[in-house]
Each structure stands twice: as C-alpha cells, then as structure tokens.
C-alpha cells in the first residue's frame, strides 16, 4: 500500500466515525441551540436572535408545563407498575417450571412486535366497548403505558436473571440465610442493575409515547401530544428548553452510572 493509501486508511475511518457522530448529535445540537432562540414570528423555524427568556420562563407557553407534569406523573406511575409486574413475571419465567411457560415467554414479546397504531386503536376499542368512552384520561393512559412497557421490563430483567448462577443463592441458603434474606441480600442486589435499566427504559418509553397515548387520552394532553399540537401552529422555543433539560438529565444519569461502575471496578 502506498503512503497515501495508508494515510487515507488511517484518517478516513476517523473522519467517517466523526461524521456519523455528527449526524447522530445534530438534532440534539439544534434542540439546545433553539432553546435560546428568540423567534421573529410564531411560524419561524430559524434562529433569529439569542435570549435567556425561554429558560427564565419556560412555563410562559400556555399549557406546556402542565403537559410535562402530566407526562412525568404518568411516566413515573407506569414505570413503577411495569417494573414491579415485569420483574415478578421475569422471575416466574426464569425460575419456575410451570405449564404454559413457553407460550407465556412468547406472548410477552407480542406487544413489542405489534405496531403501536394497532395496539392504540385496539385499546381504544376495548375501553369504549367497556363503557369507558367518557372516562378516557389519566387512568386509561396509565393502563396503556404499563401494558406496552411490561414486555421491555420482562425481557431486560429476564436477561439479567438468566445470567445469575442459582448456586449463589443456594450458597446464601447454605450460609443460614432464609428465603427472605437470600432474596434481599443476594438475589435483589445482583439483579438490581437489570431492574434499574428496565425502569429507565420504561420511563423513557412512557414519557415519549405519542401514538397509543393520543388515541386513549380523552381530554388529557401529555407532553408529546402538546408538541404535536404546537407544531401545527409553529413550535414554541420553550419546548426546546424541556428537550434540553431531558437530554442533560439523561446525560447526567449515564455519567453517574458510568462513574459508579468504574469506582466499583477499581475497588
């Protein structure tokens, strides 16, 4: 290979890598930039001027902060429900031999595999035929969210649990820990990273969901629904403030997790 060829080989890969990263992060840069935008008109999608106003008064945009709060409330509740139910399901599927275990394993995958629009509309049909057409709102959204988060939680926790050597729990029992102590002192701490990542996944899925939520929300407006509604009239810059905050929050969580893992590894 020529010297030029080698130079290209050495640098081209780096260049492509950087280009791909740039491609991935560009939307996030735009969100952060636009959170400081002072748009000339409602319909403006360009950066017209710098301002702190959006950050100082994010709730000035009518209805937005309410929708964020609702999304957080639903996200946390759905996460709690789906994580508890899903963890129990994962334990049952991995640890117990029962009739119908194999089909149950397959069925937990189904919600992940079916299109959201189909699940959303079928849920709506279900709620309406159950006579709940007047009650669509927080609770129907929550039920829908727990339903579709559940499969992801089961799959994530199952993976962690399957990698856990049953002899470690047997060793705990052998060393005078009863079933309860064995679970809380050995099983749970070892499975916890799986449960935590399942919970984070569930929250982001719930917070993010538009299609299923939109069909089952009744009069309620979640944050994704708000953004969709606003986009028909021009996206207010405050939405980008919320977007930036969410991004920074996620980044912080990842960094904290990474640092924690490194510190544990070094000890």
């Amino acid at each position, binding site marked *: 290979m020529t010297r030029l060829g080698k130079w290209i080989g050495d640098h081209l890969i780096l260049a492509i890598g950087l280009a791909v990263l740039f491609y991935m992060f560009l939307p996030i840069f735009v969100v952060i930039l636009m959170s400081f935008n002072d748009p000339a008109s409602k319909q403006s999608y360009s950066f017209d001027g710098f301002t702190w106003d959006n950050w100082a008064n994010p709730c000035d945009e009518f209805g937005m902060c309410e929708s964020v709060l609702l999304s957080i409330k639903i996200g946390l509740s759905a996460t709690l429900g789906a994580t508890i139910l899903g963890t129990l399901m994962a334990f049952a599927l991995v640890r117990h031999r029962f009739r119908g275990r194999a089909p149950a394993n397959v069925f937990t995958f189904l919600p992940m595999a079916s299109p959201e629009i189909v699940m959303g509309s079928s849920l709506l049909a279900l709620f309406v035929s159950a006579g709940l057409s007047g009650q669509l709102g927080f609770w129907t959204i929550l039920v829908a969210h727990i339903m579709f988060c559940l499969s992801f939680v089961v799959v994530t926790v199952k993976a962690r649990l399957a990698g856990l*050597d049953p*002899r*470690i729990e*047997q*060793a*705990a*029992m*052998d*060393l*005078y*820990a*009863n079933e309860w*102590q064995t679970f809380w002192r*050995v099983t749970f*701490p*070892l499975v916890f990273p799986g449960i935590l990542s399942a919970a984070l996944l569930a929250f982001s899925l719930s917070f993010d969901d538009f299609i299923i939520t939109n069909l089952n929300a009744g009069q309620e407006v979640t944050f994704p629904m708000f953004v969709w509604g606003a986009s028909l009239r021009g996206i207010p810059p405050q939405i980008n403030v919320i977007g930036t905050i969410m991004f920074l929050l996620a980044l912080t969580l990842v960094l904290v997790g990474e640092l924690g893992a490194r510190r*544990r590894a070094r*000890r």
Partner: protein
Amino acid sequence: MTQPGDVQDPPQAAEGGSDLVLQGVTKRFGDFVAVDDLDLTVPQGAFFALLGPSGCGKTTTLRMVAGLEVPTVGTIHIGGQDISHLKPYKRPVNTVFQSYALFPHLTIFENVAFGLRRQKKSDVERQVDEMLELVELTPMASRKPGQLSGGQQQRVALARALINRPQVLLLDEPLGALDLKLRRQMQIELKRIQTEVGITFVHVTHDQEEAMTMADTVAVMNAGIIEQMGAPKELYEHPRTTFAANFLGQSNLVRGTVGGGDGSNVTIDAHGARLVCPRDRAPAGISEVWVGIRPEKVFLAGAGTETADGSNLMRGGVVTDVSFIGVSTQYLTRLPWGQELMIFEQNSGARESFRVGDPVDLHWLPEHTFLLDAAQDASAGVEIEGED
C-alpha cells in the same frame, strides 16, 4: 457388592458424637434414579471422599445432605437428629461449592462474614480476621471476588463455610477448577486444615488420586450405588468389583475358573496357566472369575526364565508396546489368547528392559492377586481418555 459401611439402626447420638448417617436414601429425577437406596455412615471427624465418574450420584448425595435436594425415600441424620427435610439454612452443614459461588457484590470480608451475620453471632470482626489469617487472605479483605485468582477464590469459599464451624463440611469438587500444581498444593492445605479444625469433611470428586491422597475413607460410587468403601490402601490393594478395580488405578483382568485349593488359597485355571490366590481375596462360592492384578505388581522376564517357586506365572507373552515414562517403563504384552496386559516396571536399573517383539513371561506374587465375579463387566470404570 460389598456391605457399604457399618450402618447403625436406629441411628443414635454417641456421646457427643455427630456422625452423618444416610439410611435407604433414594433420589429420583423423573424416571432417572440418581441415588439408589444408599446406606452410609460417616464418623465424626472423618475425611470422607465420595469418588465416582460424573453422573454417578455423588453430587446429588452431597446436595441432599446440604438440603438443596430432598430425598425421594430415606432419611439423613446428623448426631441423631433427623435433618432429611430441614431447610438448608437450618442444618449444621456448610458447603464449598463447585466454582465457589462467592457473592460477587460483597467484599471478601463480607463473604466470609455472611454466615455469622445471618446467625446473629457476636464478635464477627475478630472471627473473620482470624479466618482470613488462616487462609492467608488478610490483604484481600476489602477486595471483591472478581479481583481474586482462582486459588484465592477457592480459599474464600473454604473460609466462608468453615467459619461457621459446621458439624459437617461438604466439598463439591472444590479443586476442580484449579491447575494441577495449585491442586496438589491445596490438597495438602485442605488436609492440614481438616486435621486442625477436626470437622467432618465429605469431599466429592472424580479424581481418584485426589480422593486417595486426602481422605481416610473413600467410597467408590457408580450409577447411584456405592460399589466399595474403605481406606484408600484397602480399596486399591483389594478391589471387590471390576468398577473399583478399573476406576482406582488400572487393573489387568484375565478370565479364569476356580479349580480347587486348600484352607488358605484357591487355585485358578486361566487359559491354561495355574494361578494361586489367597482365599480371603476371592469372592466365596463363585467359580467363573476375573483374575485381577495391578500393572506395577507384575514382573517381566525373558521367555523361559526360571522364576521363584510359588509365583503366579503366565508364559508365552510378546511385548507389543513400550512407553518410557521416566520413573517407570510401561509395557503392553500380548498373551497367546490375544489379550493385552499392562505392566509397569520400575526404572531402578535392577530390572531387565525389553523391546517390542521380545518374547516374555509374566510373573507375580499370589498375595497380589485378587478375584472378581466374572459376571461383572471387565471394562466397567475404565477411564475414557479426555474425559476429565
């Protein structure tokens, strides 16, 4: 089959005794019988080895004593107390698991302290420090198991079990994951610790050398039953089944017919050779036999050489293979009826050496001969190459 152990019935707690007694223990998994009507007594303070190939039921036996499996039939007593159906955490028994099963999220100190803390013992710090001292792991106290070598993890597993001063310590292939050199070292170490603490050790292994080196009593297990039980020397010198003869060391088994004898000896006709065997090394009332002899007990001599009177002698052999192993030379010799026998000759310089094709005679002392029932499979327990 021999009588496995002297089973007392009913099991009684001798003064301060805590013998481990298994009575009629059977364990079935579906149609598969893992352990078949096992009777076994392990005296307090013994170093007892359960030796057998994988799948022979030794680990299942151990797990039943630990409480990790429930016997289908039968009872398990320790010191007179029926523990057959007690939960694992209610038994005065601790286990060193195969692959150790250390708690990966706890420090070495907390791993060792685990049992004491669950029992709400006082003085945990001091006891753990002492135990870490004993297994020479004091500097590792604040590390996690993942940061230790295999040998160190093995010692943590031992310390974690031993610190609880169980009445019986169970060891499930505890040295299986270590390399040969470390294994030898740990064998001596384990034996030393056992002598020091005086706790009953029940050691499960498929390594016959390990079992013989460490244990006072070895039980050879096969297909869910104990084939033979006794001191290592007794087992080796006087195997009572073809399985025991082949699984512990190697044996030459030649077909023969008991032809008579006097008060102390029996005579056997084996392919025309007249052999003698002490009566107490022959099963009573059986005429079709395998004549057994260990390879290192056989001497080779050039064809037609005069041998000492009273030796067992087989003429007409031809050397078919010679392997020089350093301390000894290993010969394969074909006899007129086509069977190949194995012979180990010490390289002491006092023995004549032979080459492939040399005609030879085989001779050995009658008291090294043993007889087995010819109804048993002569290849039972022969170790398959590569199967560790």
